């Protein structure tokens, strides 16, 4: 697998596109700032949201059972899946039992995580993603590059070309309104023909058994209302106690995500429609293990708003696909190694630890601290390359011993001053590819201090 740094380098080769990507997401960050500033008690809300999540996670066992009871009482069916395989099989069973063939799906990172689409397609079913951005990347056979703006890596011209091929739109027309209208009529047919509608879940309310789905396009509603069978898929961490708590999150989610006061649609699904079926599928897939991990459990508080991606200067300049994990950016760099430490061991190092992510996070996950913690764990598990481990050992010895340090400093400064440019700016000097090394002084501060302060003082004292 090509790691983040190579993919990022690739991404940056097209500088215009990289600049555009950075600026577009920076604009979203600015919208978020304005939206947050419109709520004077914003920081208190963050604290409250964080505490609600802490509370819900600490009492997850009770809340999940309460939720189950309510869901059943509402006439819906509840299912539990312990991992991705079980989840996929379960969904397939519901579909097959009903003889259904056509499925529409609104946005759900969980189904991405579990690989539901390819699994259902392999079983001869048609799954259509109905969120516009999701549909675009589905046409391109690509994973999302952002959790809220899945096709943010694409320019409208590319989407125009794609629709020309897939939806027979007019050649060369990339007017967003025109393209959206084309997608809409295409999706309308899919909605009307669907037997099953699958949605993700933003919040699951324990004391009412309701699932809440936030969208801007109303596509979750279109699907759910048109299809006979509705299936809502959620991770165990989506539970919140009640509607009062929901109010805190609906004030924060869209403001953090896109800078809107609230998503256009906040849909509450509580019971099956007449003659229909409502299924709620609760998935673990590693979450309860994460819950038991004192260091990283905070990451389960995530409400998938994407704010940490929009603000991350590294994400903005490397694109979501370079992270390789289903959830990119700062939070993905914590969740990735948790799902597979060997595969994603480079991700916690893909950060300057600037801390901006932690500050925008509406549920106050200490993202940059967790990245730092992962670095320690990855190093302790000896997953870093051998060369790097030795380098650390040697650096450790040099910096812990004053005399060794003084000597190596002298040698290094001498070397940079006296060796030829070719030697210094060798290919392995990664620093020097696009940066000069510092101009090296003849004496260190320590040498200067000895000469100018101590020696002078002793001369004075003797004199």
């Amino acid at each position, binding site marked *: 697998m090509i790691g983040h*740094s190579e993919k990022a380098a690739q991404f940056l080769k097209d500088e215009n596109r990289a600049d555009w990507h950075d600026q577009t997401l920076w604009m979203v960050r600015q919208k978020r700032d304005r939206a947050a500033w419109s709520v004077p008690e*914003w920081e208190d809300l963050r604290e409250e949201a964080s505490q609600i999540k802490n509370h819900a996670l600490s009492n997850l066992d009770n809340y999940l059972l309460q939720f189950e009871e309510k869901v059943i009482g509402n006439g819906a069916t509840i299912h539990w899946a312990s991992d991705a395989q079980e989840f996929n099989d379960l969904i397939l069973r519901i579909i097959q039992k009903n003889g259904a063939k056509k499925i529409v799906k609104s946005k759900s990172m969980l189904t991405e995580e579990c690989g539901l689409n390819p699994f259902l397609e392999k079983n001869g079913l048609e799954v259509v993603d109905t969120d516009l951005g999701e549909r675009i990347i589905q046409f391109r056979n690509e994973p999302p590059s952002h959790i809220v703006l899945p096709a943010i890596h694409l320019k409208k011209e590319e989407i125009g070309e794609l629709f020309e091929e897939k939806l027979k739109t007019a050649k060369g027309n990339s007017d967003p309104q025109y393209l959206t209208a084309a997608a809409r009529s295409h999706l309308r047919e899919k909605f009307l023909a669907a037997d099953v509608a699958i949605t993700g879940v933003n919040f699951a309310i324990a004391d009412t058994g309701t699932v809440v789905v936030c969208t801007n396009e109303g596509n979750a509603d279109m699907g759910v209302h048109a299809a006979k069978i509705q299936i809502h898929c959620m991770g165990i961490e989506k539970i919140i106690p009640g509607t009062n708590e929901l109010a805190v999150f609906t004030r924060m989610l869209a403001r953090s995500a896109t800078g809107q006061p609230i998503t256009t649609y906040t849909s509450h699904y509580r019971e099956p429609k007449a003659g229909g079926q409502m299924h709620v599928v609760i998935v673990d897939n590693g979450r309860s293990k994460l819950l038991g991990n004192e260091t990283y459990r905070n990451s389960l508080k995530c409400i998938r708003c994407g704010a940490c991606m929009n603000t991350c200067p590294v994400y903005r300049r490397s694109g979501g696909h370079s992270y390789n994990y289903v959830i990119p950016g700062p939070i993905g760099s914590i969740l990735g190694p948790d799902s597979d430490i060997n595969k994603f061991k480079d991700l*916690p190092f893909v950060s*300057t630890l600037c801390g901006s992510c932690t500050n925008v996070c509406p549920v106050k996950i200490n993202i940059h601290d967790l990245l730092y913690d992962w670095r320690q764990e990855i190093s302790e598990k000896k997953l870093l390359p051998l060369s790097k481990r030795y380098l650390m050992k040697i650096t450790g010895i040099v910096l812990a011993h004053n005399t060794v340090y003084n000597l190596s400093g002298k040698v290094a400064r001498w070397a940079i001053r006296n060796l030829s440019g070719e030697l210094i700016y060798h290919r392995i000097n*990664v620093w020097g590819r696009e940066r000069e090394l510092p101009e090296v002084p003849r004496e260190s501060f320590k040498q200067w201090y000895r000469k100018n302060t101590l020696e002078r003082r002793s001369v004075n004292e003797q004199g």
Partner: protein
Amino acid sequence: MIKVGLFIPCYIDQFYPQVGIATLELLQKIGLNIVYPLKQTCCGQPLANSGAEREAIPICKNFVRNFSEFDYIVSPSGSCVYYIREHYNILDQTDQVKKVRQNTYELCEFIVDVLGMEDLKIEYPHKVGIHQSCHGLRGLKLGMPSELVAKQFSKVHQLLKKAKGIEIISLGRKDECCGFGGTFSVIEPEVSVKMGKERIRDHQINGAEIITATDMSCLMHLEGIIRRQNWDTKVVHIAEILNCNRL
């Protein structure tokens, strides 16, 4: 009289002695009894940020040995101070360790918060852009980061705005990271340099002749790019500006 220990981080010691000298001179002019312990090396951060916190422990211990006798420890580096304060929790919390963690200050913070001084009678007739280094800003809270909905302030601005002749320019992105990030600068060289270039660009289009910061590490990275590109923007550590005065 209070006793102040001067900590000069390893890369400043080796590559930027003038920053150490400016810090020492400034604190002496203010009239402090300031001592530079000769057996100091580094705070341990370079290793810890790369994941080798364990290997850093002897370095941290050496730091504590050198500095525990002082009332205050002052350093011209927000990043190292942040590391000492936040991450020396990996050491046994002896009285000495606690004392060192509590009393280590970044230079500007020390002047504003401990000495309560704001006007250093600086003369600095230049157009200056202030790059707010992340560990100082978000870690030490030398200012209020733009992400937070709270009263905006900046201790560095506070100290510079009284300087005679200075023009502090405003930036398009007032506190975006420069892309140095310690080990990040060599693990992700392309992203690091791209971030650095844009940080410099932001200063240039807003008319800065000089970029200053509380951390020489950020400036070393930016200077490396500037020199490779043959641009004429200069980098100057905040201590050097604060030392241009009539104290």
